[in-house]
């Protein structure tokens, strides 16, 4: 059992519980709590002129109704701007309940609390809100035209305007001086994270203890805690936030505090009763966050070999009605657009625009799918223009392994320089060429054509900044039973942290994984954390667990050396198989659990084992603090850069324009892999979301700002019958930035899918695909030479 756990495809420790139906998701808690429901705006842009609650008052079981007028000072103020940025000059954030104006369908106007959700909804539908409607701004075209404004005092609907350039000269001059030039106009439509479990909050106020306990289905319990404490005017130490099992996040649950995360605890304190709110699916569609929607204009200058001399990109980004999460998404698009390539002189300009729609915040990929779409469409356009092989154009522009670390000369989303630490992109491209069967494809195409079938092949590559700071921490403790308890502050929503973090701790402490228990997202257990987003958990918490476990191991060696007696030095010891033993003489050993007993000098023996640590037993005094435990942190200098390439073969029906994926291949490099089974699963899931984004999923608003497909009947998440079998190949270029060599893997699968599928459709059809997603009817229209709307 001395084999290392890291690198093994171990089964997940969390699964038996979840498989038996013993999960504890938000709505599984608080069975006796009061239920909250919200009256939400049915219109996109309006002044609220009157709220009449009289019809609701005689609903039996009604407990309370709250409007904006009821909210005390800090709760009445707008919600915080989480990530300020100098270019975000016109930030507007929402109120917990509408303050006289609504800016999107679904904005909360009235909160109702009742004995159960059925009754809360009965009361909510009897509340009459009068609106004085204002003209809505829907879609990027309308926002850019700025004939109407979303917010008074925000000219042009512009929340932020930003320009970045790299250090390779003036992009426009480089493009003008290049032998060849192209311009592309591109677009990606809106989509959404759409986890199977919506958001939810449960609050319990202990009036005797003056403590608030909040459960939230969030991606950051520590930051929800600080936000709730600030809004409610409570000392943070009186607020506990616990993230129970979470039914998926994919970005939408990193936003905080949601209005409900403030209002539900506030109501619980006010009423002296537990209060719970569980988002239903329609609420999730119209009030949780969306992403993706962008228009882009690319200008590129290149030479006859396909090498880029200059690249200028302009981006118009739809940020929805408010910007509580700042401008992270367009910053990520602007920087990660470069992918594995050297582009010569680069200039990127984005305009982040308000519309009367749901807020836009990161969804898995977080702006990268749009950036990769722009870059890879450009590569294909150059190949088409020069009559070159599409892979050859990419290869000529790749950053070479010997150029690492490679400074792209920009500022990344973490405020740190965009420096790729490690990567081997030429090998990556060779691997995808082989895996997808690029070289033999012409024969395949001809064979298909002979049967009257139309097929095409496409490839897209990306680089993903992962594992960003500021930090994560962990506490590791060896109990006197030998059980190891690992606590980290960030949350988990399906990534398998109970297994992967246990693998890391088990290796450092020389114990079996069955003896390691991992706790995440519980501020009672660990107070300092950032959160689970941006493919950062395994990099940041993984390394923090290694640091903390390393401190515990050192402490164990000191105590064991003292206990083993004369002639044994801590430096001679190792932790193996639940023992602390001499490296050169395995018979000189002591159980790790005995070391845990000895680590806490006792006056009182409460059981047999404890006797060993009492004052008349032989003490192992090392001067250490009591307890075989330690806290450790990992604070990355900057992000570490993972990479990958996808290859896809599609078939389009010559008659119906139906689009079918025949083959989907992934080459993936996330540095050292802790658990290959889990990484593979992350890739599969990402690709499925990518396929959704390429062919099926879109959030559709009409001109009035009504979300017309706010259900699973109409927002087409792929079923098993729509997702292809995925072939994967892994490569490992260890991160140069962290001790374990890890890079993040969570978002990877979704990033290049739209770009690769667009490339393959273009190849099959011989026509330009300039916006995604694409449906069969849109392809049919494209074939007829009409604009792809």
């Amino acid at each position, binding site marked *: 059992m001395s084999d290392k756990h890291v690198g093994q495809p171990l089964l997940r420790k969390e699964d038996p519980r979840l498989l038996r139906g*013993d999960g504890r998701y938000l709505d599984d808690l608080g069975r006796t709590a009061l239920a909250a429901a919200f009256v939400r705006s049915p219109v996109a842009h309006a002044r609220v002129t009157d709220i009449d609650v009289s019809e609701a008052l005689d609903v039996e079981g009604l407990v309370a109704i709250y409007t904006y007028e009821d909210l005390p000072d800090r709760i009445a103020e707008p919600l915080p701007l989480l990530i300020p940025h100098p270019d975000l000059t016109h930030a507007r954030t929402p109120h917990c309940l509408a303050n006289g104006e609504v800016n999107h369908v679904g904005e909360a106007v009235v909160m109702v609390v009742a004995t159960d959700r059925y009754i809360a909804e009965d009361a909510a539908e009897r509340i009459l809100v009068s609106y004085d409607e204002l003209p809505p701004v829907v879609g990027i075209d309308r926002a850019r035209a700025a004939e109407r404004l979303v917010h008074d005092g925000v000219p042009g609907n512009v929340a932020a305007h930003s320009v970045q350039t790299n250090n390779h000269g003036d992009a426009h001059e480089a493009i003008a001086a290049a032998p060849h030039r192209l311009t592309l106009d591109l677009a990606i439509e809106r989509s959404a994270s759409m986890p199977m479990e919506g958001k939810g909050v449960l609050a319990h106020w202990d009036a005797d203890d003056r403590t608030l306990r909040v459960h939230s289905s969030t991606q950051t319990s520590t930051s929800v805690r600080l936000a709730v404490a600030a809004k409610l005017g409570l000392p943070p130490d009186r607020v506990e936030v616990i993230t129970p099992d979470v039914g998926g996040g994919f970005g939408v649950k990193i936003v905080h505090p949601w209005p409900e995360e403030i209002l539900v605890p506030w109501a619980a304190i006010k009423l002296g009763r537990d209060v719970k709110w569980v988002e239903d699916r329609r609420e999730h569609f119209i009030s949780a966050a969306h992403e993706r929607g962008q228009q882009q204009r690319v200008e590129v200058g290149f030479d006859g070999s396909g090498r880029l001399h200059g690249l200028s990109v302009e981006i118009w980004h739809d940020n929805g009605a408010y910007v509580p999460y700042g401008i992270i998404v367009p910053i990520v698009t602007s920087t990660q657009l470069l992918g594995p390539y050297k582009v010569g002189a680069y200039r990127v300009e984005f305009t982040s625009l308000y519309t009367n729609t749901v807020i836009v915040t990161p969804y898995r990929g977080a702006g990268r799918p749009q950036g990769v779409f722009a870059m890879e469409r450009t590569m294909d356009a150059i190949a088409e223009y020069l009559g070159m092989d599409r892979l050859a154009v990419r290869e000529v522009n790749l950053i070479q392994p010997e150029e690492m670390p490679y400074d792209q000369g920009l500022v990344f989303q973490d405020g740190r320089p965009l420096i790729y630490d490690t990567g081997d992109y030429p090998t990556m491209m060779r691997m995808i060429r082989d895996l997808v069967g690029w070289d033999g494809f012409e024969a395949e195409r001809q064979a298909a054509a002979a049967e009257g079938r139309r097929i095409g092949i496409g490839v897209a590559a990306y680089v993903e900044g992962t594992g960003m700071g500021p930090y994560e921490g962990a506490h590791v403790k060896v109990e006197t039973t030998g059980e190891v308890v690992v606590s980290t502050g960030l949350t988990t929503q399906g990534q398998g942290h109970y297994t992967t973090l246990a693998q890391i701790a088990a290796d450092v402490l020389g114990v079996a994984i069955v003896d390691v228990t991992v706790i995440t997202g519980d501020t009672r257990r660990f107070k300092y954390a950032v959160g689970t987003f941006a493919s950062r958990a395994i990099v940041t918490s993984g390394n923090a667990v290694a640091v903390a476990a390393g401190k515990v191991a050192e402490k164990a060696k000191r105590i064991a050396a003292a206990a083993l007696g004369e002639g044994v030095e801590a430096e001679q010891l190792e932790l193996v198989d639940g023992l602390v033993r001499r490296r050169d003489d395995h018979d000189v050993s002591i159980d790790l659990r005995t070391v845990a007993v000895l680590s806490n000098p006792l006056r009182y023996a409460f059981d047999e084992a404890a006797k060993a640590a009492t004052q008349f037993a032989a003490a192992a005094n090392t001067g250490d603090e009591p307890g075989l435990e330690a806290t450790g942190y990992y604070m990355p200098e900057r992000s570490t850069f993972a990479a990958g390439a996808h290859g896809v073969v599609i078939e389009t029906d010559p008659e119906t324009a139906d689009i079918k994926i025949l083959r989907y291949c992934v080459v993936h490099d996330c540095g050292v892999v802790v658990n290959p089974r889990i990484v593979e699963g992350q890739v599969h899931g990402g690709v499925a979301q990518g396929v959704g984004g390429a062919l099926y999923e879109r959030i559709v608003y009409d001109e009035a700002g009504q979300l017309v497909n706010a259900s699973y009947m109409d927002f087409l998440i792929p079923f098993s019958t729509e997702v292809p079998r995925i072939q994967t190949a892994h490569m490992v270029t260890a991160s140069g930035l962290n001790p374990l060599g890890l890079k993040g893997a969570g978002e990877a699968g979704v990033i290049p899918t739209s770009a690769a599928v667009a490339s393959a459709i273009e190849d099959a059809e011989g026509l330009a695909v300039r916006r995604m997603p694409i449906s069969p009817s849109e392809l049919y229209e494209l074939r007829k030479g009409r604009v792809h709307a």
Partner: protein
Amino acid sequence: MSEQRHQVTVTVNGVTRRAEVPARRLLADYLRMDLGLTGTHLGCEHGVCGACTVLLDGAPVRSCLIFAVSADGHELTTVEGCCETGGALGPVQQAFLECHGLQCGFCTPGFITTITAYLEENPKPTEEEAREAIGGNLCRCTGYQNIVAAVLRAAEIKRERETPHE
């Protein structure tokens, strides 16, 4: 005025359970709120995602589309009832564990019940049939590939366990 309540008696996972509920109580809410069987999850409440699938007299149904009163007198199986007697993981649950067929686990109960019923009908599915069999359940995490593998593996485990030991 208060709602009229109705006595609803069902046999859930082999045990007779009863509770008094309003006529509009959904079967899913009855199981979760009134009987405390929270393994059944609600993903959409409009019958598309399949997370709330339970077996009604052995057949998969969406418990978000049925009133509890309609299930009165019937037999139900939920994910909690898909374990072996004695609590070990049932064949479908075991296969999900071995094949990494779940990530967040929220949609999983609906898959477990659906596949449990399916394997009664088709004990030896092909890969294509396995993919078709789960075609009515949404999963946002896994991309389905490992769930398809789990259907095939569950069929194997079921056969192994049903073969009498010599």
